[in-house]
């Protein structure tokens, strides 16, 4: 997605994940830029082979979780200590902290809730997935048993086509940018 360069794209279809992985490594070592690979399932090691940056979703998740923790602390403080002090098991409840152990389940759950939900939404937003979004998949067969690779064309088209055929591509097509 999001091709910033204006080079034409060459699409190559494969039917084996190991072959795709090998092809990506080969192309990149020959100076080509593999902009995208469509696959029916995650291919172990593909992100590394494509040179993708590590996701920042986990860092975001940490802060989402922290937000949930603080929200739960405030919620329990307001509802259980400030607005209507609760007597839980006869334990001291003058300050939020004194009754904090009984709020830990709430704090834990809201931490998980915030982290999980906000992670999902972040993931959708970053990948431009929303109700009614048009499918970006160029070939429906990649949702079944085929793998499609998009390579930016640099140099002669014939060279790249030959190379892709050597690497085991079944179909090759060119898309003008």
């Amino acid at each position, binding site marked *: 997605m999001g091709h910033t360069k204006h080079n034409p794209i060459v699409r190559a279809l494969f039917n084996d994940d190991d072959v795709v992985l090998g092809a990506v490594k080969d192309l990149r070592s020959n100076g080509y830029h593999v902009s995208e690979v469509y696959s029916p399932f995650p291919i172990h*090691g593909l992100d590394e082979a494509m040179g993708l940056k590590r996701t920042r979703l986990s860092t975001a998740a940490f802060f989402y979780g922290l937000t949930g923790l603080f929200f739960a602390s405030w919620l329990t403080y307001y509802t259980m200590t400030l607005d209507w002090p609760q007597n839980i*098991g006869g334990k001291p409840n003058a300050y939020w902290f004194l009754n904090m152990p009984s709020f*830990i389940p709430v704090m834990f759950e809201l931490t998980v809730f915030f982290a999980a939900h906000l992670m999902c939404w972040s993931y959708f937003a970053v990948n431009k997935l929303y109700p009614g979004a048009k499918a970006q998949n160029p070939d429906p067969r990649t949702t079944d048993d085929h793998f499609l690779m998009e390579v930016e064309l640099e140099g002669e088209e014939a060279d790249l086509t030959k190379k892709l055929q050597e690497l085991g591509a079944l179909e090759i097509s060119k898309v003008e940018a």
Partner: protein
Amino acid sequence: MFEFKTKTKQLAIALTVVGAILWVVGFALNGSSSHDAGHGHDAHATEVHADAGHDTHAEEAHADHGHDAHAEEAHDDHGHEAHAEEAHADHGHDAHAEEAHGDHDAHAEHAAHQIANRPWSALYVAAFFFLGLGLGQLFFLGIQYVAQAGWSAGLLRLMEAQSFAIVVPLIVIALITFLGFGHVHHMFHWMVEGINVPGHENYDAIIAGKRGFLNPLFFTIRILIYIGGWIWAAKVLRKNSLLSDTGDGVAMWKKNRGVAAAFTVFYAVTSSTSAWDLVMSIDTHWFSTLFGWYTFAGMFVSSFAALILLTLYLKGQGHLEWVNENHLHDLGKFMFAFSVFWTYLWFSQFVLIWYANIPEEVTYYMQRFEQYKVPFFTMLVLNFILPVLAVLSRPAKRVPGTVVMAAVFVLVGHYMDHYVMIMPGTVGDHYGFGLVELGPILFFAGLYIYVVLSSVAKAPLLHKNHPMLTESKNFHQ
């Protein structure tokens, strides 16, 4: 093949010897030096008697009278003036000879027992902690076979070596408990004479009700079953693993899987019952239904910390070239996961008891909050917050530095955890960290290093005919 160098061997032996000497010296000085033993609240210590059947309203005031441990008591439960009663707490075993007559003597005797218990309890804490380092890995070794794990094939020899470290702590633990039957110490209140005899001055109806389980004969049989079963598993798993080096790797692996499956079932039961017997029975009145898993979780996570340190030590010596950051990552994940699991069980146990607020249950935590505040809360930070923050992120689990840091937190924290499990029920507020505590740690650490490294040195570090060795070598994530 790893060579256990003479220098390292000498260091391990020196640790053992120094530790033993420190403990013996501490034992001799105990009682006479109980005032400078490190607890700074001699003046007005509130005692919470969780299990002694004494008056829980009594406040004990320990006065400094030179070098004898005088216990002075003030009773205010009947509203009249305080009775002052003095008892000489001789450090030896003869304190028991003082027959208890009435509440005051009973209290003084109780305090004397607690002081006399301290060296034994300290030895017991260290033995139990180091037992966990071996036992956790013995169970983990079994799990590798049962789960048909491939990633760990290159680490099995280290787990086997660690498993043998259970022998010495087990013997020490068994001896200490058996000495309790001879009233050499008073760590286990249920071992007191006449505890189940109605009309006897030591009679305790609640403990008498548990006599079917907590009686000397059955207890001894159980201890022997644990020792026999665990050591048998460690020996057989090791034997078959060594046989596979010269023979058929697949056949030996299958044999070990059968052994491991049997051991896992055996350990599922004995991990809980041993925790009841060896630790929970100290606070005899108190019980917790998840205590076995809680104890197991603590042992398991600290054994991962030990495995990580051992792996990195051997890598630092230029061995284990097939172990890389991917394996370290998995070990780090296990340590992280079980550190969280331990906290989960700790909290589950605490929050239900704390808010259910049943007197005989909640005293367990009252005593820890009041007398053991510092170790109790420090160990929570060390066992949960610090390791979680240190190895939460993926890159942190792949760098030796952060993983080692987390492992050290876990080891220190779980020593303190065992301390807080065992000490309150045996020594009350007469605790501290002195020679008697330091000695056993050095003693068992030296033995642990000696036993583990010498078994590592006895066999090739690579389990070369393991059917899944290739998977382990190619493992990455």
